[in-house]
């Protein structure tokens, strides 16, 4: 049990969460929380259940246990309501609108929050000039990395207060990764909470205030980057 | 289960009255048509909404060959099959370029056009009325007739029904076996892979085009063969209503889906049942019969989306599991 004063500013709290796909138990009794202004990373081997976790938080799965965002249970909230409340989730598969232009995709990012759309569009283009170049290209023909940028850009268009990123570094060239790192930092400055699932540990350690290590659907370790870096268990996982 | 059904079919003439037996003969052909659809559409996922073109190609060719050119029935059936196979090739090629609904539309359109063509050339193609029935495949010989009389089939009508039932049953089983063997071989694996993802098939070093054309050709040939044989029996005639109209194509699709796509057995069995259910409703409910019939089909499909046969076996498996669990409550 965490201390009462910590609970006060908990934005997302996951308690005793279990999720299964038919016979496959993907998550078991997971407890995770994200507090105001924090960046939290979830790391762990392939198939650990990271995507399942964030998918559940995004409202796409039925679950046992409790997942509360801003105090309300996700199961009782529709995905649009979650977005309305400031959550934005960039999925591992990106889920872009393939036959729309880059710009249309971005604009739909601010579907529920049309105010300041133009300004944010400029900001996204500043962050990813490549997207501005490809502004009217059909999304399906973008390269893998370009799609990843667009996915992030679309997330930013909603002016999120709480951003979930599932493997934002996947398929990105090192140069772009640096850009994304910078973008993430500037988002962090806006006191937006961020929950990242990452495989790229260096990237995760660099940005996270706290980390959770997930394995076989359960949390094995959690703590600050410093506390974890010296952890034997994590070390073996990171593999040096 | 299957064995009981087969046994029932084999002894049907001794179990059913002569008119029901005659209807069963017609139902067997519906089953053959449905199987030919399932072979291409159920397996490769290339939806054809105009399979009647093959039945008609076979049936009309055979009838014209026999009626207008005096070709013997057996040869005429062969010619019908060949022409239908040709249709299969002709449709198979666009199927290489067209996917999903695009292909469905093209296949739907072809019989629509054919119907109009038969109307434009009523002299050769018989128009709306269809052609007269060509010669029967065989006639009941004297010795056969006397044997049949001995086992209780006295009237020539009864004897004819008896003989053609067995002919149809042989064709039905032959076609079933043929499709069964093909779909259970690696060819079936490739067909279903094409249905799932053609690019994955390409990446596996298999040319999906070749297999698609093959599927259409073989399905067309078999459908055409059934159509050609059909018109040479006393139950069938080369008319748009029984071979060509869109309704025929749609019924075949409906049967296959109700029976379970990609199973061959399902469409074959449901084809037979379908024929009888429709007829029973028709005679008992007259003009609301079709409303009832389609509502029934809708409910079946809604509650057993995978079709009757797969759906029922799923269901029975579930019930068995449940019973197991009840039997050993500890587990």
């Amino acid at each position, binding site marked *: 049990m965490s201390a009462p004063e910590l609970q006060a500013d908990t934005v997302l709290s996951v308690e005793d969460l279990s999720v299964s*796909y038919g016979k*496959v138990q993907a998550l078991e009794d997971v407890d995770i929380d994200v507090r105001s202004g924090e960046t939290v990373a979830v790391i*762990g*081997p*392939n*198939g650990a259940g990271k995507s399942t976790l964030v998918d559940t938080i995004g409202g796409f799965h039925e679950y046992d246990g409790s997942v509360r965002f801003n105090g309300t249970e996700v199961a009782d909230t529709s995905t649009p309501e979650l977005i309305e409340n400031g959550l934005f989730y960039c999925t*591992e598969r990106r889920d872009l609108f393939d036959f729309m232009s880059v710009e249309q995709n971005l604009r739909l990012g601010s579907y529920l929050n049309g105010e300041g759309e133009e300004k944010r569009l400029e900001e996204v283009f500043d962050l990813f000039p*490549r997207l501005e170049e490809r502004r009217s*290209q059909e999304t399906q*023909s*973008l*390269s*893998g*990395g*370009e799609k*990843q*940028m667009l996915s992030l850009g679309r997330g930013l268009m909603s002016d999120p207060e709480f951003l979930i990123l599932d*493997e934002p570094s*996947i*398929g*990105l*060239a*090192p*140069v*772009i*990764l*640096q850009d994304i790192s910078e973008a993430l930092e500037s988002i962090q400055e806006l006191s937006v909470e961020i929950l990242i699932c990452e*495989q790229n*540990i260096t990237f995760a350690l660099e940005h996270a205030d706290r980390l959770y290590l997930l394995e076989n659907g359960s949390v094995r370790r959690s703590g600050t980057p410093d506390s974890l870096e010296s952890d034997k268990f994590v070390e073996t*996982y*990171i*593999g*040096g | 289960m299957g064995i009981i059904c087969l046994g029932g079919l084999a002894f049907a003439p001794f179990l059913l009255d002569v008119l029901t037996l005659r209807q069963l003969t017609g139902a067997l052909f519906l089953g053959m048509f449905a199987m030919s659809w399932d072979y291409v559409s159920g397996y490769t996922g290339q939806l054809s909404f105009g399979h009647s073109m093959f039945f008609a190609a076979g049936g009309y060719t055979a009838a014209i060959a026999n009626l207008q050119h005096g070709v013997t029935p057996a040869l005429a059936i062969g010619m019908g099959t060949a022409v239908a196979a040709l249709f299969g090739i002709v449709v198979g090629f666009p199927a290489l370029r067209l996917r999903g609904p695009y292909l469905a539309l093209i296949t739907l359109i072809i019989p629509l056009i054919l119907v109009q063509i038969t109307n434009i050339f009523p002299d050769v193609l018989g128009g709306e009325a269809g052609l007269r029935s060509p010669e029967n495949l065989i006639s009941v010989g004297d010795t056969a007739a006397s044997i049949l009389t001995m086992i209780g089939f006295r009237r020539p009508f009864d004897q004819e029904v008896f003989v053609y039932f067995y002919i149809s049953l042989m064709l039905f089983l032959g076609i079933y076996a043929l499709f069964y063997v093909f779909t259970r071989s*690696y*060819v079936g*694996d*490739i067909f*279903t*892979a094409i*249905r*799932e*993802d053609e*690019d*994955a*098939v*390409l*990446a*596996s*070093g*298999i*040319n*999906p085009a*070749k*297999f698609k054309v*093959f599927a259409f050709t073989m399905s067309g040939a078999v459908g055409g063969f059934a159509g050609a044989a059909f018109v040479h029996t006393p139950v069938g005639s080369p008319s748009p209503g029984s071979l060509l109209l869109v309704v025929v194509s749609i019924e075949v699709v409906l049967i296959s889906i109700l029976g379970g796509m990609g199973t061959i057995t399902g469409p074959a069995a449901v084809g037979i049942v379908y024929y009888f259910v429709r007829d029973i409703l028709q005679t008992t409910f007259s003009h609301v019969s079709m409303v009832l019939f389609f509502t029934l089909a809708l409910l079946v499909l809604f509650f057993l989306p995978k079709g009757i046969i797969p759906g029922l076996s799923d269901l029975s498996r579930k019930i068995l599991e449940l019973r197991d669990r009840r039997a050993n409550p500890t587990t």
Partner: protein
Amino acid sequence: MSSHATQSVDGTARTDDVLRLENVTKRFGGVVAVDDLSFSVHDGEILGFIGPNGAGKSTTFNCVSGAFPPTDGTVYYQGEDITGVPQYALVERGLARTYQTFRPLEDRTVLENVSLSMVPNKLFSFSEFRTDVEDRAREICQQVGLTEYMHQMPDELPHAGLLRLEVGRALGTEPDLLLVDEPFAGLTPEEVDRTATLFRSLREDGMTLIVIDHNMHGLLDLVDRVVVISFGEKIAEGTPDEIRNDPTVQEAYLGGEL
């Protein structure tokens, strides 16, 4: 073999080239995805193929593997001009690839997925006995580390599992040259090592590989040689060390020293 193998525009070609691209260009409307690209791959090597996002790597793979023909230029495989030859025919000739986005057949198990790639591209064939195929498919599953998943459906696989399945399916076609698109994406370092080991062992067995990836730790440790492209053009070529230290590459791709 063919005379092509010895003649070349820039004279860099060697007779043991498995694959050679000459002046390959691919345009999509106004976009030039691949721009006059030439390079070659030697027999038995593992070539790294890198470049920024959108540089045209996957497009190059597509042009080579027969997904679509290049707008311009020629592709030679084992000395023969294969420009525009359809993919299935190339697979039959021993050129296979994996996709950046996975496309398993969702309706069948992992084992059956792998088996399919071993099925003959013939309408009537009795030569392949199903048990043989299955044994071989099992072997491949073991080789790529899918033993425990053999009888599961693709949608039950974790990310890495899908990736292995992708490789497994390609292996089923018994390729001589394998093009791999981003095999390390989303893998843990441990998984990256395992995959790299698999590639090395394939190479031991005589296979040639081209690998695209953005994971520089994983890739540069694995490959013998690297070709770097940017905006569709080749900007550098050399050993991993040369590439690591190449200022152009650092600027365009690595974003500083690694």
